[in-house]
C-alpha cells in the first residue's frame, strides 16, 4: 500500500515537471530574469558592444531633465486621458444598445468588432489615408457636405493627438464584446423580478445591470490604461512622432533610445519609469475599485 502511494506521489512529481517546466523556464528567462536585469541595467551605461558600466542614478537624472522625455510623457498622458474614458464608456453604451434584444445582433456585433481584428500597420496606413488633409475622404466630405475646411489631422500639432484618439475609438468593439458577455451572463430572473415590482427600464439598468457588470468595467478600464500607455505602431507608421514632437509617444521615445541609439541603460530606465507609472495607476484603480466594484461574495 505504502509503496503504491509513493509511486503515485512520484508520478505526481513527474507530471508536475512535465506540465510546468516550459512555463518555469519561460518565467525565469522571459519574465523574472529580464525584469531584474532591466532594473539593474537602468543604473548603467550600456551599448551592448562594451560591457555595462555602473553609473548610479545618472540615467534617471538625465531623463527627468530631458525635454523630449517630458514632452513624450505629456503627449502620452493626453492620449490616455482621451482614449481610455471614451473607449471604456463608449463601449459600455454600445453594448447596452446591442443588449436590448435587437434583431441581427450577431451581424452588428461582427461589424463593430471587425476593426479590432485588423490592427497593426495596415490599419495605421488606412487611417492616414482616410484622414489625409488634402485627398482624404473625411476632409473631402466635410468640405462637400458642410463646407468646412477640415483640419490637417495627423499633420497638425493641435490635431495629431485627437486624430490618434479618434483612431482608437474605432477599436471600441473589443471592450464592447467583453461587456456584452458580462451583460448576457446576468440571470434573467433578476430583470423579471424587477419588472414585477414595477421598475422601469432605466431603474433596472441602474440597479441591476450596472452593478453586476462593474467587475467587467473595471477589467476593461485596467486593460485599457495598460494598453493605451504602450501605443507604438500607429505613431511609428503615421507620424514618426511629429509634427514637432506632437505625437512623440512614450514607447516611441523608448524604442528610439533602445534600438536606434543603443542606449540600453537609458532605455531600461525609461521602461522602469513607464512600469512604475502604470503600476501606480493600476493600484489607484484597484483601491478605488473597493468603492464601486461589486463582487458577489461580498453580498
Amino acid at each position, binding site marked *: 500500500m505504502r509503496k503504491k502511494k509513493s509511486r503515485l506521489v512520484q508520478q*505526481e512529481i513527474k*507530471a*508536475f515537471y*512535465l*506540465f*510546468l517546466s*516550459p*512555463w518555469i523556464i*519561460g518565467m525565469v*528567462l*522571459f*519574465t523574472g530574469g*529580464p*525584469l531584474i536585469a*532591466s532594473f539593474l*541595467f537602468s543604473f548603467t551605461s550600456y551599448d551592448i558592444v562594451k560591457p555595462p558600466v555602473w553609473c548610479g542614478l545618472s540615467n534617471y537624472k538625465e531623463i527627468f531633465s530631458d525635454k523630449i522625455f517630458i514632452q513624450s510623457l505629456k503627449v502620452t498622458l493626453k492620449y490616455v486621458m482621451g482614449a481610455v474614458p471614451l473607449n471604456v464608456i463608449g463601449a459600455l453604451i454600445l453594448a447596452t444598445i446591442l443588449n*436590448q434584444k435587437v434583431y441581427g445582433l450577431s451581424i452588428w456585433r*461582427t*461589424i*463593430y*468588432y471587425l*476593426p479590432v*481584428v*485588423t490592427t*497593426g*500597420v*495596415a*490599419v495605421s*496606413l*488606412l*487611417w492616414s*489615408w482616410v484622414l*489625409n488633409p488634402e*485627398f482624404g*475622404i473625411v476632409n*473631402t*466630405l466635410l468640405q462637400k457636405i458642410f463646407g468646412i475646411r477640415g483640419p490637417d489631422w495627423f499633420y497638425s500639432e493641435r490635431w495629431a493627438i485627437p486624430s490618434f484618439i479618434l483612431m482608437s475609438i*474605432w477599436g471600441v468593439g473589443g471592450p464592447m464584446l*467583453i461587456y*456584452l*458577455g*458580462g451583460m448576457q*451572463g446576468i440571470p434573467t430572473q433578476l430583470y423579471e423580478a424587477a419588472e414585477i415590482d414595477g421598475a422601469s427600464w432605466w431603474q433596472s439598468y441602474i440597479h441591476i445591470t450596472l452593478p453586476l457588470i462593474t467587475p*467587467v468595467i*473595471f*477589467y*476593461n478600464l485596467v486593460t485599457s490604461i*495598460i494598453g493605451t500607455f*504602450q501605443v507604438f*505602431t500607429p505613431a*511609428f*507608421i503615421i507620424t514618426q512622432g511629429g509634427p514637432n514632437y506632437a505625437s512623440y509617444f512614450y514607447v516611441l521615445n*523608448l*524604442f528610439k533610445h533602445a*534600438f536606434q541609439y543603443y542606449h*540600453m541603460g537609458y532605455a*531600461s530606465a525609461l*521602461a522602469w519609469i*513607464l*512600469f512604475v507609472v502604470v503600476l501606480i495607476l493600476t493600484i489607484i484603480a484597484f483601491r478605488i475599485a473597493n468603492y464601486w466594484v461589486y463582487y458577489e461574495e461580498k453580498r
Partner: protein
Amino acid sequence: MRGFRVQAKIKSKKVSNILVKAILYVIIIALSVLFAFPLFWMISTAFKSNEQIFAEPPIWIPKPIVFENFSNAWNKLPFNLFLKNTIIITLTATIGIIISSSLVGFAFAYLEWPGRDIWFVIMLSTMMLPAQVTMIPIFILFTKLGWVNTFKPLIIPAYFGGGPFYIFLLRQFFLTIPRELFDSATVDGCTSLDIFIRIALPLVKPAISAVAIFSFMGHWNDFMGPLIYLRSTEKYTLSLGINMFRGYEGITMWGELMAVSLVAAIPCLAIFFIAQKYFIQGITLTGLKG
C-alpha cells in the same frame, strides 16, 4: 375602470416602446456604417486607378475595377516572400502557444502542487507588466545567442508558457470539466499525461480554437517584434514589408498602399468570419470572469 386605465397605459407604453426601438435601430445602423466605412474605403481604394482615387467628387465603387495596384506593388517588392515569412512565423509560434499554454493551463486547473494558487496570481499579474520592461534584456539575450535576424526570437518564446492570457483562458475552460472524469481515469491507471491528451484536450477544443485565433492575429499583426529582430529584407514579414514600401514609395501611392494593406488584413478577417463562434466564446468568458 381601473382595468381600462391599465390597458391604456400598456398601449401607450407599447407605442413609446416602438419609438424607442426605432431610434435604437437608427443609431445601430448609423454606427455600423461609420465603423464599416474605413474598411470599405480600403477595399475601394485598392481597386481604383489613380485617376479614380483622386477624382472629384469621390467615386465610391471603383469602375472599372483595376488590379494594377496589386501587380505594381508586387513588382516593386517581394511581397510573396514577406507573406511566406509571416505565415511561417505565425503558424510555428501559434503551435507553440497552443501546446505550452494548454499544458500550463491544465496544471493550474487540475494538478496539485505547492504554491499553485500564489503562482496563479503572480502569473495573472504579469499580464499588467508592460512588454517594454522585459524587452531590452530579452533583446540582449537573443543578441548574445546570435539570434538577431532570424525567426527564432519571434517563435521560441511561444513554446515557454505561451503567455498569461492564454493560460488563464484555458484554465477556466479546463475547470468546467467535471473532476470525477479525471478521478475515474486515474483509478483506471491513467497517468496525468494520458488524462490530458485523451480526456481534457478533446473537451476544450473550442477554447483551443479561441487561443489559436487570438495568437494567430497577434503574431500576424505584430510589428514591434519583427522591427526589432529582423534586419535583412529577405527575412521581412508583411508588416515590415509594408512599412518599407511606405518609406520607399512616399506617401502618395495610396492605391498600392491600400492594396498591400488589404492583403495583410484579409487572413485575419477571413479567420474571424469563419471561426467567429469560438472567438466570441473566448472573449465572452473573459467578460464573465472579469
